[in-house]
């Protein structure tokens, strides 16, 4: 199904699977746009209806047929309610493969049990902001609370205004959304959440193997030092194992940095100042990467950021860029500065004086889009270490 990023608040479509609790939940007062599903409604041949949803809330984890969901259906953001009275080892044993292990940054977990949440959060590397706190609520109240929260987040207005200026825009967006709706803060418009999750999936599938390749063979006690430029609220932190990776993130938005620190306390998150110069020494990182950041910056800022990424990467380390290289012509106020792959390579060559070689290229097509729009470039830095 082709959907556009702007299938948004006007058509909020939250599906609430109640399963064994259908009788109670059907009488709950839910916001407009929410629909309750019974177990008949989620028979495998009926699941196609999920693809039009913006969110799927699963109140009854035991009876939902996760194993029948297709890839497209998994692109719908999930809110799963953890059943009360079970501990983390039990829930992991029963649900890890089917659902818990597959939940990502754009999914949520609703539970009243704080300790259970903490244990599972660490195990599955969830962000703190992915929790929806319940208060020992019966299913109908839980449904109302969850749907109410989703409605509030969707209603937060954001406009880019007439005059897009990168740093001001992202600081404003961070201030407005970083604590209340972090999953929405990191995109330029208030998107359909399913669009965001689908994009994240495609990008993860491309980046994952490249992170592994960049890590290479190293001694066990030597952590993999990674820098993310434009870290936002830290969504990529959930894809890196803190046991063997040290993530540092830079962003221009103080609010987003604070949200990232709260969500991923193992990471280090620093504010990037307006001069865009990184507060790190040469050759500090094994990998410096950026995702969907440079195409929101004009060419001069791109050049500075690329040059700084090169400077702080060790020789033999990697630089990775995942950006849009296919964009409509820029209109006044647009937050996107179109740049073709050829022009980008020109800029990288200039910013690094050609001191890189190409390791990987991948064109990405997002599920809603007829065009290949995104591109992933992985480069190795060429040089002799200057720092012992």
């Amino acid at each position, binding site marked *: 199904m*082709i959907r*556009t990023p702007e299938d948004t608040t006007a058509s909020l479509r939250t599906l609430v699977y109640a399963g064994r609790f259908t009788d109670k939940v059907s009488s709950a007062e839910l916001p407009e746009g929410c629909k309750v599903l019974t177990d008949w409604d989620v028979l495998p041949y009926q699941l196609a209806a999920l693809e039009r949803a913006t969110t799927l809330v699963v109140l009854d984890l035991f009876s939902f047929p996760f194993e029948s969901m297709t890839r497209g259906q998994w692109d719908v953001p999930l809110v799963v309610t953890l059943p009360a009275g079970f501990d983390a080892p039990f829930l992991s044993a029963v649900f890890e493969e089917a659902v818990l292990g597959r939940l990502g940054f754009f999914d949520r977990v609703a539970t009243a049990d704080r300790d259970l949440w903490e244990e599972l959060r660490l195990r599955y590397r969830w962000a703190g902001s992915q929790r929806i706190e319940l208060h020992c609520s019966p299913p109908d109240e839980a449904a109302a609370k969850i749907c109410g929260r989703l409605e509030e987040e969707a209603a937060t207005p954001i406009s880019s205004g007439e005059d897009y200026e990168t740093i001001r825009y992202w600081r404003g967006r961070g201030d407005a959304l970083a604590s209340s709706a972090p999953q929405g803060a990191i995109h330029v418009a208030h998107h359909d959440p399913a669009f965001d999750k689908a994009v994240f999936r495609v990008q993860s599938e491309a980046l994952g193997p490249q992170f592994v390749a960049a890590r290479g*063979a*190293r*001694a*066990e*006690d*030597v*952590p993999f030092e990674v820098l993310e430029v434009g870290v936002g609220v830290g969504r990529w932190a959930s894809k890196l194992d803190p046991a063997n990776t040290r993530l540092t993130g830079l962003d221009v938005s103080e609010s987003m940095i604070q949200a990232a620190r709260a969500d991923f306390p193992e990471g280090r998150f620093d504010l990037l100042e307006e001069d865009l110069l990184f507060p790190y020494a040469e050759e500090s990182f094994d990998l410096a990467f950026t995702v969907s950041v440079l195409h929101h910056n004009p060419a001069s800022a791109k050049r500075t950021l690329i040059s700084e990424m090169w400077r702080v990467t060790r*020789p033999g380390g990697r630089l990775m860029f995942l950006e849009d*290289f*296919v*964009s*409509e*012509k820029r209109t006044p106020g647009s937050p996107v500065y*179109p740049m*073709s*792959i*050829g022009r980008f*390579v020109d800029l990288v060559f200039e910013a690094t004086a050609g001191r890189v070689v*190409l390791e*990987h*290229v*991948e*064109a990405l097509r997002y599920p809603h889009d*007829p*065009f*290949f*729009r995104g*591109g992933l470039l992985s480069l190795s830095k060429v040089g*002799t*270490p200057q720092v*012992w």
Partner: protein
Amino acid sequence: MPDNEFYTPDDIDLLRMENELLTFEVRFLKARLGQPAKITGSSTSLNRLAYLEDAERDLVLLLRRLSGSPVGPVLRRSQRFRTLEQKYIHSPRLQGSSSPERLAYLEEAERDLILLLRRMSSKPFGGVLRRRKAFRTLEQRYL
């Protein structure tokens, strides 16, 4: 977007940019596919193999000497040095004549030796180390 299976692209700029992106990817894939397959047997000459094995031995010797010297504890503060120790001294060495895995390992050893020598040759160590004949020999051979 019409609600059927077809669409007609009408934005020339988008098409041009997409074409450029896909051409770039194809060129990369051709470059990668053109590289010799690592899983097939190595065609490295015996001379080259002998040279690489010497490089590995020289690297292990050098690391052992550095490790055992008074500066060993200082060097071990560097992650890079610890990685080298782990790889070439503390891990079981990859044996097996000229298997592809052994070849890749030896080539990596050669690279690591060159990087290490380069670093040692530069300030502030280079002047002092170059007084030793053994170091000058290594420089001559690998740099």
